[in-house]
């Protein structure tokens, strides 16, 4: 019966109009997250059908603009839009007018001239999605802006935790590694605390931003702090963001020795997550990455349905159409 209840949540109209943009987790209330996760769950059922395409967003246009390399985020946004029958267009900075020095404002105005319904943007600079939102009429989805936010990643992580552990409230998540350079960590701390989870950040002191505790998380510099966690969320060492000679850590060898997530440092049953791409043997031991308790592939699968839910939520105000979902089965 509980399952039906969850299904029915997806049929309910949103209690308030959906937000026009998804730029930061800070844009969302708890009920928005509940609604998005329920919608994602509804879509996950539809994807079990033989024909996976839904007519929901037929005639809508989703433009993906990626100024940074990405495999899973760009592919899952594109597939999410296609699964919902939207027209999609993907633009990468390399090979576009950006190479010729076009400003983000002009790129936004150019793309806006096609009247897209949604612009999904990834950009290396904080504030790029706001700028696009200012110069176009499209709904803007932030697919990662610098070290600021990656809200759909946090939503898919919530979805994964909910699916695997059956709840988010009260779950203890330890986020381990390079928090300083991580938009994933920032979005996740906000999203997890919003949903009532307990968050501990673990890493070398220079890689934990000063003042981050105000977001409502604990901080530890000892890897032993992951012992109490239900979920160990491993961050990638963002070597490309580290300036030469910045000395955040003396060496990757010492980092791995001290903060690497190894089987010896985990309890049986602790779930392990990673936003990818992984540096196997640096922040995560390959045996951990390949163990049954690793939810890394589940995260990727969740990415598709959560991004479908986000696009759907931005573009519709009513319930999920009946034809969009599997018939109800009373267990």
């Amino acid at each position: 019966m509980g399952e039906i209840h969850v299904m029915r949540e997806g049929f309910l109209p949103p209690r308030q109009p959906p937000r026009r943009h998804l730029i930061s987790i800070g844009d969302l209330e708890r009920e928005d997250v509940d609604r998005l996760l329920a919608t994602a769950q509804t879509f996950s059922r539809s994807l079990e059908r033989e024909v996976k395409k839904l007519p929901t967003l037929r005639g809508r246009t989703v433009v993906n603009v990626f100024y940074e390399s990405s495999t899973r985020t760009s592919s899952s946004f594109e597939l999410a839009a296609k699964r919902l029958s939207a027209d999609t267009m993907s633009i990468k900075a390399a090979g576009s007018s950006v190479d010729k020095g076009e400003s983000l404002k002009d790129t936004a105005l150019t793309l806006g001239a096609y009247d897209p319904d949604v612009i999904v943007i990834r950009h290396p600079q904080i504030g790029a999605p706001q700028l696009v939102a200012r110069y176009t009429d499209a709904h803007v989805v932030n697919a990662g802006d610098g070290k600021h936010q990656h809200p759909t990643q946090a939503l898919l992580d919530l979805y994964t935790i909910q699916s695997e552990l059956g709840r988010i409230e009260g779950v203890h998540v330890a986020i381990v590694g390079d928090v300083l350079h991580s938009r994933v960590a920032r979005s996740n701390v906000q999203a997890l605390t919003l949903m009532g989870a307990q968050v501990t950040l673990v890493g070398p002191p220079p890689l934990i931003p000063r003042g981050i505790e105000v977001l409502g998380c604990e901080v530890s510099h000892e890897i032993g702090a992951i012992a109490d966690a239900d979920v160990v969320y491993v961050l990638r060492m963002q070597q490309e963001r580290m300036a030469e000679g910045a000395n955040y850590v003396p060496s990757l060898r010492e980092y791995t020795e001290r903060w690497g997530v190894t089987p010896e440092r985990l309890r049986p049953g602790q779930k392990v997550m990673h936003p990818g791409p992984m540096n196997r043997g640096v922040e995560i031991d390959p045996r951990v990455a390949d163990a049954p308790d690793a939810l890394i592939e589940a995260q990727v699968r969740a990415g598709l349905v959560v991004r479908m839910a986000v696009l759907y939520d931005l573009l519709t105000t009513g319930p999920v159409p009946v034809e969009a979902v599997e018939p109800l089965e009373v267990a």
Partner: protein
Amino acid sequence: MLFGKAWRKEDLVVRGARVLDPAEGLDSACDVRIDRGVIAQVGTEVDSNGHRVVDGRGLVLAPAFVDPHVHLRVPGGEDEETIASGTAAAAAGGYCAILAMPNTDPVVDSAAVLGSLIEDAKAEAQVPVGFLAAITRGQDGAELTEMAELADQGAAGFTDDGRPLVAPSLMRRALQYHAITGRRLALHCEEPTLSRGGQMHEGAVSAELGFTGYPSVAESVMVERDLSLAAYEDAPLHLLHLSARESVEALRAAQAKGVRATGEVTPHHLCLTDEAVRSLDSNLKMNPPLRSADDRTALIEGLRDGTIGSIATDHAPHARHEKEVPFEAAPFGVTGLETAFAALYTSLVEPGLLPLETLLERMSTGPAKAYGLEPPRIAVGALANLVLLDTRETWRVEEDSFRSRSANSWLLGQTLNGRVKLTVAAGRVAYAA
């Protein structure tokens, strides 16, 4: 040291204003008569002598303002500001004199560049301008400029503003050598390896937004170093745009020990904190960055007790397209000449954080003294440098209301109280609302 167009001096009478000159101990409703640009009479029932009469009833007449820190962008940045537009903006903001910074293209590091700026100022400046010259050639922090020649040419002081003087040995040489010029050395205090990549103040807000932090200690370690060197060399110095509590405390302690150090603070650091950066508005990006509420409190306290003697706008015009980019890609700097008084009156005086008299003194006498300029004053025989203020007028800051060529103001769209109605600079009406 100040240069402007040789305007015809004017005859004028301002009647019935509250005449307020804190330095002269003057605060009374009376008339002020100006004969050929010079204050001729201060008193009641002053005969107009056929002069043009301005009704000052309900308004405040004070010594006009002096801005010790303006980027006029010339040479090289004429699309952003010129001497004509920058001084017109200054006049509209109530300023009778401004000092321009030398971080231009080319840098003001030779008598030739300085000489040509002085010629331009004589041709087009709406209010008198002083030009600071660089401390080091090209502001590269390697070789001292020819300070004696630059001073002879008319440099108002020396600064590498925009860049710190990194090498302590060079800082010491500059302190030693500049003494022969009698002009002030002004320091931009920033330890560049601590501020590297910094976009905003390092604290809870930067942690949440993900910006690389520019910690307050990047400023205060250099403030402390420069004050130590100034004490050792017994040389005066002026600290530009202070932003951190630790800097104010270091300056206060040095002054108590007898170091001849002065300091300035900007309106934006006095009115805002790093919380404002949450909007990601590129007009809130400046160097040094907006700091914490505690830093702001320390700056206001330092201004009130006189540790910080000057308010400086650090007016930094930028072309529109330069600021219409993501926050991280935007250049540092905001404009301020045309909004300084109203912003500070609204944010500090009205809420009771700073007396009006102190604000007026720190915008006028304080900066003039810091650079050894003749302070504007309301006294018979003084050259008329006056500002008439309506503290009851409310107005909205609009993009098209600026005389500056640039509109990168942190106050766009905001409603302020207090407005400049009339500016008399060097004996001439430079602005009338």
